[in-house]
């Protein structure tokens, strides 16, 4: 071996028997691992993909076999959801109340798309709109109208909204800080969550389909978490959640619920619309 190649191709004498034994062991491990990887991928693969690769009949037969051996669909779902909660735990650990979200200047503002899942509600609801707060320290529910919020300080910020789909948009928001609302109407003892709902959301056919998200109170208390009334200087339209919507730029767009009608403070984690549909629940950016 020359000096050049020193250390790159180390040669050794190895007892033939030992070499054979080790190699056999490695091949067995390799084969077992390859089988386990294939079986594991099968177990967690969506049925549609399996049918495309193996054909309807074979996919069903193999799925039945897998279920008989204990690799059921329910267990697969539970296992995969663990990946989501694990990732959420990491996101929560990364969160710092002191870390501010990047703000932009006016010329960075981009068009913001209306990503309502169903139909955009008709603006008629705005006249009748009220905000109900429950789970308060006072023990009583509070019903607010827009003028009731005008006593709280107004804040403006130009931040980015990141959608779980992969697009993002920069928009200027103004409104009150969620933390100011929390101070004005403090939540009950032990409250850790805000369950925020919109009763006016519609499904694709225009039928009522209330939307709801869970927001942890540390996020609600962040100075850049707004209850916005204005977008780029003009009052919100029905397409962007008039008259009051959540702007939490440290969360995915789907947490930024539009047309809020109710905020309930809870001790236990409340339900979350997209969390119930296979997405993660914390959604911290």
């Amino acid at each position, binding site marked *: *071996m*020359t000096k*050049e*190649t020193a*250390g*790159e*191709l*180390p*040669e*050794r*004498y*190895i*007892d*033939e*028997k030992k*070499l054979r034994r*080790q*190699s056999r062991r*490695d*091949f067995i491990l*390799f084969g077992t*691992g*390859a089988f386990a*990887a294939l079986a*594991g*991928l099968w177990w*967690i*693969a*969506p049925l*549609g*993909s399996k049918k*495309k690769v193996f054909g309807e009949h074979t996919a069903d037969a193999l799925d039945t076999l897998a279920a008989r051996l204990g690799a059921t669909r329910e267990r697969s779902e539970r296992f*995969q*959801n663990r*990946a*989501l909660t*694990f*990732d959420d735990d990491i*996101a929560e650990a*990364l969160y*710092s109340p002191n*870390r501010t*979200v990047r703000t932009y200047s006016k010329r960075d503002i981009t068009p913001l798309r209306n990503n309502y899942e169903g139909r955009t509600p008709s603006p008629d609801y705005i006249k009748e709109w009220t905000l109900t707060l429950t789970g308060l320290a006072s023990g009583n529910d509070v019903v607010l109208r827009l003028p009731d919020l005008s006593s709280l300080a107004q804040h403006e910020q130009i931040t*980015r909204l*990141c*959608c*779980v*789909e*992969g*697009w*993002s948009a920069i928009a200027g928001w103004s409104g009150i800080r969620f933390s100011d609302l929390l101070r004005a109407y403090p939540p009950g003892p032990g409250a850790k969550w805000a369950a925020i709902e919109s009763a006016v959301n519609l499904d694709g056919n225009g039928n009522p389909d209330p939307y709801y998200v869970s927001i942890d109170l540390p996020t609600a208390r962040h100075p850049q978490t707004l209850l916005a009334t204005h977008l780029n200087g003009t009052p919100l339209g029905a397409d962007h959640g008039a008259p009051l919507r959540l702007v939490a*730029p*440290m969360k995915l767009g789907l947490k930024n619920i539009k047309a809020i009608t109710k905020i309930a403070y809870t001790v236990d984690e409340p339900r979350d619309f*997209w969390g119930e*549909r*296979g*997405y*993660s629940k914390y959604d*911290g*950016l």
Partner: protein
Amino acid sequence: MTQMDADKPADDGKALTDSAEEASVEEVAVVQKPVEEVPAKEPPVEEPPAAEVVEVVDEHPGARLVVIKHHALVRLSHWLNVPILFALIVSGLSIYWASPVFLHKPDPVTHSRDYLADLGIAIARHVPGAKADGFWFYDHFGLGVFNLAGALRWHWLFVYLFLATGVLYILGLLLGGGYRALLPRRSMVADGFAMIRYYAGVVPMKILRHPWPHPHITTKYNALQRGAYASMPIAGALALASGWAMHKPVQFWWLERLFGSYDGARIVHFAVMIYFILFLVPHVVLVLVDGWDTMRSMIVGWSGRIGGSHD
């Protein structure tokens, strides 16, 4: 005198000095069978010190001289990467479907608005029975359309495995010394061109029955392999960095800034995927061409090719 020398029968064989190591390797490779005079219990000798006097006679009865190629952790992480990268790519394509970056005006006929869907349409036109629409690509190369939630779940599951595998790989490189074969060398550029020339000529020269020897390689990898393999951990790190820049653009704001913007990170992330795929094709073809020893060495760790890979 080391213990090794003291144990040795000093009767026959010529003494070699200095360059002994190289010479002994060749000689022993010829004398494979154990020689009777030598005591059978002699322990296998690790790299004899070059300056010492070394015997040429087979001092290694029952032993085989092999090249130690890949550390166990390198092999493990190499194979783990097969299902992991597969899962990351197919789920990544379904995530990409939800909001493509490479867009064009919607095609009036196919209604496709992104280039990957176009690619799918082009492929599907040649597949019997396939419906050549904008969904085909994501249905057949990804986890399906309208499956963003399922695809994200796969992506997070496998990215943590990818991260853990990357750590195992780096650990294996360090423990096994494999990193040395990946470090850049001054001769790489010239050697790289020699390899390109070889690959360009190998098929035509075979047809012309003209001798076309493989460039003599004394290192573990030829210059092209060295570059390609060394780029893999870098590509992996880039994939992770751009991925986390998108996944946590607020907490890791500095990571996002590194890629210019959110979309910048998306483009880099996508480009790295293409790079992995481009690497994979020649990687698999060449290992099949190179033969069983090379393939086996990634399973068992050793190679029987003494003194370099070719010629």
